[in-house]
């Protein structure tokens, strides 16, 4: 395992991280979590900028926990780039470069040749992050850590760089840990996502699994699912959960009938109107729109359903006409695959899951 973090703990006044374990192959793992969950602390411990109270960090089987940052071979790209302001872009990259030829090479990779002679302080946000990344690559690291590299960029720059990062990091051939609070960035850049919550990791898995089969209610909420509470009435491949007055057809679950459960429903999978006949089996629910938000590329409707005080969220394509307004009565259908029963009992039925540290 190229980069392994094992049972790491670090306590500060008012916050403690871990015990936390994470293994990163030659891949990109996006650590996703809200601010204050310990993402940056985790990176500092891996980089050696901070020391864990307990636990170990190892790179290619070699323990590095007791090594100073410079002897670990782990380069870090900081949120604002952390370029040296007294140096030009070229000097920043050369500072880290193992040999001078590398400066031009990494500058070409990141497309920053035109700004190489500019002072670091004169670069735009996107240029700054590119130079910071070029500088980290110039050090020829054995592992790369990225702390919210896209967080402070304007949307168009962020989206372009996100796409480029995906390709660049995949070709790098070293373990990469990418920290972000943005689920889109996490999914776009990471081969796997590790969702962090209160200093621990709730769920590690491929983006599709984390989003559609979240391990905990926190992961479900943080990745945009709606949480409903109900009771299992049937188990197995055609599981059913009673929610309000509705028998919700749910994704496979081994939980016994009678178990009180939370289910995660993805708003994007919920549809307006009746399901098409050839589609996934779905539960049809009638309700009233209580809120409508235009999110730029789609609408988000909140639908109150009689018999439950938990509303359903539905996302609707902006092309759809008409878009129901607040107060309108609507029919929505919840496909079986969009209803994920939280809690134990999915292992035997979903072999694709790679949940660690439940």
């Amino acid at each position: 395992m190229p980069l392994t973090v094992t049972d790491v703990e670090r306590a500060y006044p008012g916050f403690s991280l871990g015990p936390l374990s994470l293994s990163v192959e030659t891949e990109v793992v996006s650590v996703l979590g809200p601010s204050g969950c310990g993402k940056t602390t985790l990176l500092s411990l891996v980089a050696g900028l901070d020391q864990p109270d307990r636990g170990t960090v190892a790179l290619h089987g070699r323990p590095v926990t007791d090594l100073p940052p410079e002897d670990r071979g782990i380069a870090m790209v900081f949120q604002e780039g952390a370029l040296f302001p007294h140096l030009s872009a070229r000097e920043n990259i050369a500072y880290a470069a193992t040999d001078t030829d590398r400066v031009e090479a990494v500058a070409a990779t990141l497309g920053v040749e035109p700004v190489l002679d500019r002072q670091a302080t004169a670069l735009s946000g996107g240029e700054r992050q590119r130079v910071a990344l070029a500088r980290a690559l110039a050090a020829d690291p054995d592992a790369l850590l990225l702390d919210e590299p896209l967080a402070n960029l304007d949307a168009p720059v962020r989206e372009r760089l996100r796409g480029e990062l995906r390709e660049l990091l995949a070709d790098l051939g070293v373990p990469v840990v990418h920290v972000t609070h943005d689920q889109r960035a996490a999914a776009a850049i990471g081969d796997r996502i590790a969702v962090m919550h209160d200093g621990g990791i709730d769920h590690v898995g491929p983006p599709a699994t984390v989003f559609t089969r979240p391990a905990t209610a926190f992961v479900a909420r943080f990745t945009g699912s709606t949480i409903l509470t109900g009771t299992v009435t049937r188990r197995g491949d055609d599981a059913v959960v009673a929610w309000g007055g509705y028998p919700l057809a749910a994704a496979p679950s081994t939980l016994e009938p009678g178990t009180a459960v939370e289910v995660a429903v993805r708003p994007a999978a919920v549809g307006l109107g009746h399901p098409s006949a050839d589609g996934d089996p779905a539960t049809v629910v009638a309700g009233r729109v209580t809120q409508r938000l235009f999110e730029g590329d789609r609408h988000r409707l909140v639908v109150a359903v009689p018999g439950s005080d938990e509303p359903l969220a539905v996302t609707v394509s902006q092309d759809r006409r008409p878009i129901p307004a607040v107060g309108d009565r609507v029919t929505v259908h919840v496909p079986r695959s969009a209803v994920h029963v939280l809690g134990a009992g999915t292992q035997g039925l979903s072999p694709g899951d790679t949940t660690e540290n439940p």
Partner: protein
Amino acid sequence: MSHPASAREVGRPDWVRVTLVLGALLAVYYLVPLAALLVAQPPGAVIDRLATPAVQRAATTSVAAATVSTALATILGLPLAYWLARSDSALTPVVTAVVVLPLVLPPIVSGMLLVSVFGPASPVGAVAADAGLQLTRSLAGVVLAQTFVASPFVVVTARAALADVDPTLEGASRSLGKSHWTTLRRVTIPLAKPGLLAGITLAFARSMGEFGATVMMAYYPRTLTVQTWVAFQSLGLDAAFPVAVVLLVVALTALAVLTVLGTTPWDA
């Protein structure tokens, strides 16, 4: 457009104007004596006086001692400044207070304390004297006095400059494979340089101007300040002025250096 506004303000004190007058008064108070000194002292008289051996010896003593004191303050002060800037130890307020003590202590009192530690009657002074080193009434005495009084300027100013360097930049350098020492040399110190030089300049200027502690530790060899005092006592103000002009030039040069560095500590 300005008419209604000024109509509204009729009868109100014009605070901007009051502030300007008060400030101007103080500025004039600073500048007039300076101008008077420069006008009252014909350049010929100053140059003649400067040519006397006593003044030349005093100038040599002052410059030599201030150079050594500034070097000592820098070598001993910068590590302490860095520690104060970066440490979150509970000791930092205590250490800061100790560093600032010589700044708030009247120099003559500092001189008395130093004499009691380094004087010929003291154990330290006696041991040094046996080894052939006079700690009072010597260049060493001048250096001890100046270092005591002037080194806090290096520590306090450098600490502020070093604290302004974002620790993230040091972390970035370390994670790029550079040692702590390389990071200091190539990132921290270059970024803090204006502030560090300001502290060193202030310490040199303060050393050159040191009188109270110096006169207690070493009446001989005379520094320029002691020489000025002696000339004033024995021959009067006119005899003392030419030497004072030299000290004034040193002070103005230091001011010019600080202005060029752009980080006058009182701006911060």
